[in-house]
């Protein structure tokens, strides 16, 4: 049971890293990004091909590179490449597109990438994917405690990511992003370079998605197109909306409920109630229904975003006349 919980938690925590990143895009800035999972995959694949030895016919695998990098370096590489991917797509898609069109573009990019990677074997092994990455650090930690060790590492990374995202939210940068979400035109009218701010938020989110993907493959040791498609996008969006879009704690709670309680809970159903082949379709249906119910009855989510209070630090004399820049 403890082993089961540990494994579940690793999946939840890596998903949380991705969700916090998506929250910066969707929650703070209001960008409906439907290709977050694509950045997860790119981060994961890149990490695999950087950390694994070159593909040989003997293994039956095909993939590029195979550089035998140490795992932490490969994670960094995966994160950066996912961020670059976000930068390229974002710099084109955000230039003139408003919310709905942006969502459609990201959806199309996600599908195109999914089909391309799935059908082009030399890159990342096509639909067979890549597998066989040894558990990072297992030679030091040993097999017995490796899961706990890896959970701890993931948890520390999530903590850092969480503090980073929360810091940005409370700073003027995060406030500008939220202003863009509320009214892009008014933000522009007050001198905000909407394109630039959106692009920065988009790249940060893509980096974090890549980081989540990299940590995920460190655990699974494998990745194939079957594990990152539109159902996984639905999981991410549902977790964010359920927990509370814009609220980082809410997003983590949402992910624990969705990827933890619901997904893992389904495996405890009495045998024979739902046949194994139907398990994952039912899962997707539950997420979809849950998303609709939340949007209908509590669109702000379980833990809604709250604007920070203005705390008066010390009683000081109020300025009565605002300063004006004199016209010369």
């Amino acid at each position, binding site marked *: 049971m403890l082993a089961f919980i540990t494994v579940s938690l690793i999946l939840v925590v890596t998903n949380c890293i991705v969700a916090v990143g998506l929250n910066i895009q969707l929650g703070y800035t209001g960008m409906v990004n439907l290709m977050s999972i694509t950045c997860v995959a790119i981060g994961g694949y890149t990490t695999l091909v950087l950390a694994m030895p070159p593909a040989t016919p003997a293994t039956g695998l095909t993939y590029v590179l195979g550089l035998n990098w140490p795992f932490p370096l490969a994670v960094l590489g995966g994160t950066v490449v996912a961020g670059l991917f976000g930068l390229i797509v974002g710099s084109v898609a955000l230039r003139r597109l408003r919310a709905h069109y942006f969502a459609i573009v990201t959806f199309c990019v996600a599908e195109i990438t999914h089909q391309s990677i799935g059908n082009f074997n030399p890159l990342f092994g096509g639909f067979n994917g890549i597998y066989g990455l040894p558990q990072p650090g297992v030679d030091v930690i040993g097999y017995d405690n490796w899961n706990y060790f890896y959970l701890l590492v993931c948890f520390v990374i999530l903590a850092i990511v969480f503090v980073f995202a929360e810091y940005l939210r409370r700073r003027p*940068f995060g406030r500008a992003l939220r202003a863009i979400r509320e009214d892009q035109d008014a933000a522009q009218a007050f001198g905000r370079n909407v394109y630039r701010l959106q692009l920065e938020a988009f790249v940060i989110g893509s980096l974090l998605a890549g980081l989540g993907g990299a940590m995920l493959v460190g655990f699974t040791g494998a990745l194939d197109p079957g594990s990152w498609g539109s159902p996984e996008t639905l999981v991410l969006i549902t977790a964010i909306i359920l927990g509370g879009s814009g609220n980082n704690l809410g997003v983590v709670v949402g992910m624990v409920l969705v990827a933890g309680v619901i997904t893992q809970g389904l495996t405890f159903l009495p045998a024979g109630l739902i046949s194994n082949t139907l398990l994952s379709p039912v899962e997707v249906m539950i997420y979809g229904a849950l998303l609709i119910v939340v949007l209908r009855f509590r669109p702000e989510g379980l833990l809604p975003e709250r604007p920070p209070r203005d705390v008066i630090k010390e009683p000081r004399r109020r300025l009565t006349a605002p300063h004006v820049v004199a016209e010369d």
Partner: protein
Amino acid sequence: MLLEVDGLAKEFGGVHAVQDFSLSMDAGEVVGLIGPNGAGKSTVITLVAGFTRQDKGTVRFGDTDISHMPVHRRARLGLVRTFQLARVWGRLSVMENMLVAASSPPRESLWRQFTAPRAQRAEEDLDRERARGVLAEFELLRLKDEPAERLSGGQKRLLEFARIVMAQPRLVLLDEPSASLSPAMSRRIGESILHLTSLGIAVLLVEHDLSLVEDTCSRIVCMAASRVIAEGSMESLRSNELVVQAYLGAALEERDLSKAAGA
């Protein structure tokens, strides 16, 4: 000269929205822009603010040719606009609305969030204090922690004016600030416009409430059917046959009727 618009023209799908529009404004001046619906007044605002690009003509602001400048860069030079519907950042608190208006893009740069948090915090504290003063003047201080979306229509308008005070632009383009507000609130808007001018902010006012225009503007431009048809004081416009025919006749009649109904 603060603003110099020369020969501005814009077509939408073959329909002339604005033709040959020229206007000069001095620093601190309040100019009214009136005319019947569809005359092209709002298009002038969107063109000068940069939300749409003109087909012809130039816009100079201060010493700079801003004809092809994106909106946010015009705003940074001190040219701000409002919209026909009050547009506040709804899920930001009233105070946050003020701070966004006051803070500059450098303060929000991603890099500076990490390199200069102290300096940033000091700037923010100064702005907060100033914002509290401005909010008090607009009777919004007790609402400072409320999400702006909870404000009434009139309060949202006032918050817009308070934001402009925070942003300290050189020119603000007001697009029908009294639209859909009560007469009492309309007077309040008039006071707010004078408040802006007392701070040295020039105002270009598009408005249908002619008494509001008369009370605040020293010079009035009248448009009809995409062109400027007259310019001058309200007095001179009243005696202008063209203006009375195109706009004032109907507008004054309506105003007299509503006055009679009110009395």
